[in-house]
């Protein structure tokens, strides 16, 4: 699943939004999700998240994740249905002795929990698939004044995860080809058996880090004032959307305080 949740390049209206707007959207969805516990509200919220995913054209790629989440949602629903025993009893799971009641409220609150879980997770997944990591980090640099060097360090680390994994495979293949066995059932032995892989890997990484530093030097890194190709400023749509989200959240909080959306 980890491999599935990465940036997907599309030219959609959602992709064109500023990273900050999308962060706000994900956080507000989290807020909405936690405010209400009425299943109708939460299902509507889930539908809105799916709609955003569809307009970002990432729904297709997220389908495997969604089906995986559905399994968890079902489990959550079942647990809630089994252990929530207040309210109007529909039927008993163990008939005759009238044990383990299944109630209407239990089913509905299970539905609400499942919808809430899916909404919150999906909203962040949509945010991550529709926003380039660089843009997220650069926005953080710009808006929250994180020094560029640290942001750059983080981005470079991300960039080198795939090549690091390649090296892990390369080294462990090489050691296995020389007759070193990796694995076994005993966890301590397993950890110990990784030593001949780890040592060359660390040396390789140090060497690579040095090469990267050289490549950066020869491309003028730290040459003084930096410019940035990508615009991290917020546009009109971004401001409008953020304002709308804030307004929506404020009015929902008021509605919630007045007793709407609670079961």
């Amino acid at each position, binding site marked *: 699943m980890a491999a599935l949740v990465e940036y997907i390049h599309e030219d959609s209206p959602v992709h064109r939004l500023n990273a900050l707007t999308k962060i706000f959207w994900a956080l507000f969805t989290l807020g909405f999700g936690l405010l209400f516990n009425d299943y109708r509200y939460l299902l509507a919220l889930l539908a809105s998240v799916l709609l955003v995913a569809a307009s970002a054209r990432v729904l297709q790629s997220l389908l495997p994740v969604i089906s995986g989440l559905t399994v968890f949602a079902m489990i959550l629903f079942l647990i809630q249905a089994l252990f929530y025993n207040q309210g109007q009893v529909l039927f008993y799971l163990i008939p005759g002795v009238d044990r383990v009641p299944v109630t209407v409220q239990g089913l509905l609150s299970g539905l609400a929990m499942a919808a809430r879980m899916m909404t919150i997770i999906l909203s962040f997944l949509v945010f991550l698939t529709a926003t380039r990591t660089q843009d997220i980090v650069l926005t953080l640099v710009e808006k929250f004044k994180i020094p560029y060097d640290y942001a750059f360090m983080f981005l470079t680390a991300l*960039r080198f995860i795939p090549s690091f994994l390649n090296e892990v495979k390369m080294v462990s293949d090489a050691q296995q080809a020389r007759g070193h066995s990796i694995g076994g059932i005993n966890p301590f032995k397993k950890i110990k058996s990784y030593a001949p892989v780890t040592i060359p890997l660390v040396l390789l990484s140090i060497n*690579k880090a040095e090469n990267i530093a050289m490549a950066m030097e020869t491309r*003028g890194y730290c040459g003084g004032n930096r410019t940035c190709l990508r615009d991290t400023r917020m546009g009109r749509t971004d401001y409008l959307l953020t304002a709308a989200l804030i307004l929506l959240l404020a009015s929902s909080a008021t509605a919630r305080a007045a007793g709407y959306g609670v079961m």
Partner: protein
Amino acid sequence: MTLLKIENLTFSYPQSIQPALKNINLAIKKGSFTGITGPTGAGKSTLAYCLNGIIPHFQGGKLGGQINLRGDSLFTLGTAQISRVVGSVFQDPDAQIISADVEQEVAFGPENLGVPPEEIEQRIAEALYLTGISGLRRRPTTVLSGGQKQRLAIAAALAVLPEILLLDEPTSELDPAGTEEIFQVLKKLNREHGITIIIIEQKTEQLATHADRIVVLNEGAVVMDDHPRQVFSKQQTLEAVGVRIPQVAGLAGMIGVNDRTPLPLTVEQAHRFIERILRR
């Protein structure tokens, strides 16, 4: 016009008795295509590090002599200043691509030098066009082939608009097709855009075809510095040093060359060479 003048350059790495470079003297002319070759440990990479400022700014050691870059002493310039004139491409395609996508990678150099975004945009388009990878602009760098990665590294170096492109064994991890790709790009940059090329390369076949001057290093010293035809006709010296002689040149050397049948360096030239000999 001389762009780069190396005078009596000597360098020793720390904790090493033998100097890595001994009394090197070279002058690189604007618009030239210089190939530097030699056996492993001859000091080729060390020389490259001296030319792009890695030595002395990144790698310390005992440095003697002088390098003059367009009238300034190279050792007093910072790496960022040097990078405006000398663009570098290294051996390992993976360890010189810094960004996660192609566009950002090419933008990295100009961004560091404070080029305005609109101009960076133009430079990206130009650099990707020159290296023939315009179609890859939106791709993540991890999915590129070795040859594409090295072309991207060249594009990234070009985006700084350097006068000199310095390449340290850019094709050593590439297959023959990838190697040819790189040399075609370099040839185009040299002939059509007047970019001075300095390339360190073990593949003498390609050097013989494309370079207009070959410098042979051995044990830190220049042992030959001449036109490829002159260099590859001294085949005994090359063999003693351990430099591979291009196949066609080796064959012609065995047959024997004279003024009417000069040493061939490419397959086409070898074709004519053999025709002339057979007609005799």
